C-alpha cells in the first residue's frame, strides 16, 4: 500500500501503454488515425477538467480558455522555431502550452476561485466570454477570424522524428496522454488532491482543520489549467491551426459533456466520455446530418437515467462481476437490448423522416435507412415508422420490470454472499 509502484499498477500502466502503441496498427486508415489523435487530446482535456469538477466540485464553463491559450502559445512557439528565432524540440512544445495554461490558471483562477458553487460557474462563464471576445479583438496574437496557422515539421529532426507524418504525431499525443494521465492520477493521491475532495464535500470543515478552501481551489485550478494547456499544445501540433473557436464557449461546453457522459465520480469516467464523444462527433456526422440532435439526446438520457455517467454504470456491475454472477443479468439484458433497439430504430427512423421531409431535394425525398427505403412523401411509411416506435416504447416499458427484477434477485444474492 505504501509503495508507489505496486506490481498491479505497473502492469496496468504498461498495458495502457501497449494499447496506445498497437491502436494505430489495428486502425490504420488515415481517418482512424486522426480520430485516435483527437481522442488522445480529448482525454487529456477531459481529465484535466475533472480535476475541477469531479475532484474539487468546481463546475467551470470556461475550461477551454486554458486549453486554447496553450494552443495559441504553442502555435506561436512553432512559428518562432520555424523562423529560426530559437531552438526547442517539437516533442516538448506541449510543455510551453502547459506553462501558458498554468500561468493563466494562476492569474484568472485567483479571481474565479474566490467563490465556489453557482457564483464560480457564472464567473468562469464570464471569463470565458471575455477571453473569447479578446481573441477576436487582439488579432496580432490570436489571428482574428482566420486564427494562427503553423507548421509542425520544423526544427531539426530528433531521432528521426520530423512530425510530418500523422503516425508520428499520434505517438507524440499518445506519449503525452500516458504521462499526463499518470500524473493526474497521482495528484488525486496527494495531500492537495485529498483536500480538494474535502473542500468539495465540506469547505467549512476544511477551514477548521487548518486549510484555506480558496487556496485549495486555486491550486487545483492552476494544475488543471496546466494539463489543459498541454492538451491545447498537442491540438496546435495536430491541426496546425488554432482559431478563436479553440478557446470558445462551444469547446468549453463540449468538455462538460465529456465529463458528465463519462462520469465525474470516477477518475476513469472522463476518459470514457472523451473517447465516446470524439467517436460520436466524427463517426455519427458521417452517417447523418441530424447527428447533433442524437448527441444532445444521448447526453439527456445519460443525465436522466445514470447521473453518475457511464463509469458509474460500470462500477455498479463490478461487485456482480467479482461474484461471478454476470450470467444472471444476461437474459434480462438481452431482452432489454431487443426491446431497446426496436424503440431506437423507430425513433431514429422518425427523426430521419422528419429531417428528409424538410430537406430541399425536389425530385425524391426517399432515402435509405439501414438498407431500407423510406419515403417521407408517402403516408404508409409514416404509419409504419410510428408503429415500430410505439411497439418499441411498449416493449421497453414492459421489459424494464424484467431488468429491475433481475437486479433485485441479484442484490439479495450478493448480500447473502457478503459481496456488498
Amino acid at each position, binding site marked *: *500500500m505504501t509503495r508507489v509502484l505496486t506490481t498491479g499498477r505497473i502492469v496496468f500502466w504498461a498495458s495502457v501503454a501497449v494499447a496506445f502503441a498497437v491502436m494505430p496498427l489495428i486502425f490504420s486508415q488515415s481517418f482512424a488515425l486522426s480520430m485516435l489523435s483527437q481522442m488522445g487530446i480529448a482525454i487529456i482535456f477531459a481529465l484535466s477538467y475533472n480535476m475541477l469538477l469531479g475532484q474539487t466540485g468546481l463546475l467551470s464553463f470556461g475550461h477551454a480558455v486554458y486549453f486554447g491559450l496553450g494552443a495559441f502559445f504553442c502555435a506561436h512557439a512553432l512559428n518562432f522555431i520555424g523562423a529560426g528565432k530559437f531552438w526547442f524540440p517539437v516533442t516538448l512544445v506541449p510543455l510551453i502550452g502547459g506553462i501558458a495554461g498554468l500561468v493563466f490558471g494562476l492569474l484568472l483562477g485567483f479571481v474565479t476561485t474566490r467563490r465556489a458553487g453557482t457564483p464560480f460557474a457564472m464567473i468562469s462563464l464570464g471569463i470565458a466570454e471575455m477571453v473569447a471576445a479578446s481573441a477576436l479583438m487582439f488579432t496580432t496574437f490570436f489571428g482574428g477570424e482566420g486564427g494562427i496557422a503553423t507548421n509542425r515539421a520544423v526544427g531539426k529532426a530528433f531521432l528521426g522524428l520530423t512530425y510530418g507524418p500523422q503516425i508520428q504525431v499520434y505517438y507524440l499525443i499518445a506519449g503525452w496522454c500516458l504521462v499526463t494521465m499518470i500524473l493526474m492520477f497521482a495528484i488525486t493521491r496527494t495531500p*492537495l*488532491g*485529498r483536500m480538494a*475532495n474535502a473542500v468539495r464535500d465540506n469547505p467549512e*470543515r476544511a477551514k477548521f482543520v*487548518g*486549510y*484555506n478552501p480558496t487556496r485549495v481551489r486555486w491550486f487545483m485550478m492552476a494544475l488543471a489549467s496546466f494539463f489543459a494547456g498541454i492538451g491545447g499544445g498537442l491540438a496546435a501540433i495536430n491541426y496546425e491551426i488554432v482559431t478563436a473557436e479553440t478557446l470558445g464557449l462551444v469547446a468549453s461546453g463540449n468538455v462538460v459533456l465529456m465529463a458528465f457522459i463519462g462520469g465525474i465520480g470516477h477518475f476513469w469516467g472522463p476518459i470514457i466520455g472523451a473517447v465516446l464523444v470524439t467517436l460520436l462527433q466524427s463517426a455519427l456526422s458521417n452517417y447523418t446530418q441530424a447527428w447533433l440532435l442524437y448527441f444532445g439526446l444521448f447526453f439527456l438520457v445519460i443525465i436522466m437515467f445514470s447521473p453518475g455517467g457511464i463509469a458509474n454504470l460500470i462500477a455498479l456491475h463490478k461487485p456482480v462481476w467479482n461474484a461471478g454472477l454476470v450470467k444472471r443479468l444476461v437474459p434480462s439484458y438481452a431482452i432489454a437490448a431487443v426491446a431497446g433497439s426496436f424503440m431506437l430504430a423507430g425513433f431514429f427512423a422518425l427523426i430521419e423522416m422528419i429531417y428528409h421531409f424538410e430537406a430541399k431535394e425536389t425530385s425524391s425525398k426517399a432515402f435509405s435507412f439501414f438498407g431500407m427505403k423510406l419515403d417521407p412523401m408517402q403516408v404508409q411509411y409514416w404509419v409504419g415508422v410510428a408503429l415500430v416506435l410505439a411497439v418499441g416504447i411498449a416493449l421497453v416499458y414492459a421489459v424494464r420490470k424484467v431488468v429491475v427484477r433481475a437486479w433485485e434477485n441479484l442484490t439479495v444474492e450478493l448480500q447473502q454472499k457478503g459481496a456488498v
Partner: protein
Amino acid sequence: MAAPALQLHDVRKSFGRTSIINGVNLSIDAGERHAIIGPNGAGKSTLFNLISGRFGVTSGRIDLHGESINGLEPEIINRKGLARSFQITNIFPRMSVYENVRCAVLWSQGYKYSFWHRVDALESVRERTSEIVERIGMVKRRDRIAGVLTYAEQRALEIGVTIAGGANVILLDEPTAGMSRSETDEAVDLIRKVTEGRTLIMVEHDMSVVFNLADRISVLVYGEVIASGTPQEIRGNKAVQEAYLGTEQH
C-alpha cells in the same frame, strides 16, 4: 507565569441591532476543563463562533496563549493550536473514517498543499491517523464511509477530527447532544481521555456531563457571564439557581 490558554476581554458581538454577546470576560488556564452553560439563546454557540474565527467580534479582544487572534481566519486560528467541533455534526460525509481523520492530520504534519507527496506513503501521517482512529475507538469502522455511521459514531468521529491536528485548546460544542444515557457515558470517557493534558472548553446542556467533567464552569445568560467558578461554587450560587438551574432542570 505563563499566559492563560484563552482570554476574552470585554468581547461583544451584535448582528445588526441585535446584541448577542454583551461584554464577556473569561480567562481559561492551560490544562483546564471549562464548561460554558446557560439557557437556550444565551449566546453560547455564538461565543464559540467568535473564538474559533467563524465570526468576527464587534468589539473586544480574544487572546490565545497571550496573543491576539482577533480578525484571523478560522484556518489561521486552527494552525495556532485551537480546534473546535460543531453542534451539528460537521465531517466529510463521502470519505471514510480514516480519511476524515487524515484530512485533519495533514496540515499539522507539515504537508500543507503538497501535490508531490504520495499521501498513503507518509509514515508520520499514517501513524498519527491510526493513533487517533484507535483513540476514538473506531478501528473496526476505519474504512466505513462517514455518512453511513450511526449518530453516536459520527459524534465520536467529529471529536476525532477535532483533536487530530494536535491543537492544545479544544472547543466542543454540545458533544453529547441527542445521545442516549449509555452513549453519553461513553462520550464523556472519550472526551476525558482525548483531552488529557489539553485545555478543553465545552458548551453542554447535560448537567451530569458538566459536573462530571468540568474543573470550572461559566454561566452565560443573555450574552453575559453571570458567574464563573468551580462546580461547587456554581451549584451554590443564588443568581445561577434563579437564572438557570432552578428554572430549567436537567
